[in-house]
């Protein structure tokens, strides 16, 4: 199983509050993991990716950070949310050879 667990499904947070979104995956060890953000009616933008524990690469400068404390755990965080952080956040695993699997996503609204 390559199941991805993402929670919460929906989150409403005030501006300036902290954020922690968690993603855990099942299946083969040492997966490549990704965080994507999707603005309303738009495509997915890659935020972070990780090829192993403690290894995080950022694709775009932003108000967010990511961590991978365990092999199958990937966390997206912010110390102080901005209105522009609102969006749909998707965790994914995989690679080009076997394809990519996505979690069910978290809809974040910053108010």
């Amino acid at each position, binding site marked *: 199983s390559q199941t991805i667990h993402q929670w919460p499904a929906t989150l409403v947070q005030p501006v300036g509050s902290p954020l922690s979104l968690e993603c855990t995956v099942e299946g083969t060890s040492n997966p490549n993991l990704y965080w994507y953000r999707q603005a309303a009616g738009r*495509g*997915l933008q890659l935020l972070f990716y990780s090829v192993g524990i403690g290894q995080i690469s950022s694709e775009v400068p932003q108000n967010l950070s990511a961590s991978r404390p365990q092999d199958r755990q990937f966390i997206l965080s912010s110390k102080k949310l901005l209105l522009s952080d609102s969006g749909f956040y*998707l965790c*994914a695993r995989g*690679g080009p050879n076997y394809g*990519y699997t*996505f979690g069910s*996503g978290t809809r974040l609204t910053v108010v």
Partner: protein
Amino acid sequence: AQTVTQSQPEMSVQEAETVTLSCTYDTSENNYYLFWYKQPPSRQMILVIRQEAYKQQNATENRFSVNFQKAAKSFSLKISDSQLGDTAMYFCAPTYDYKLSFGAGTTVTVRA
């Protein structure tokens, strides 16, 4: 990241008919992969079809097929015998390194 262009924001098709979605991309890589993903109203991302750039044969998956033109950097998706369940947003996504880069998507509506 790559630039991925899906020039058709919306497409409408009659049930049982055929629709073709266009995608062009920009890459400097020679070996890469291309994907089409479907996102229904549930927002779950579902893999539709996968193509390896080094293979000349176009991929097919049941009613879904692609027309891959490597020199033109074009990767179109054809949906044959459209069904109501095909209503969704469709994303073209080529890889760079091992990461996916997404187009803005095409919303496909299948009419009964």
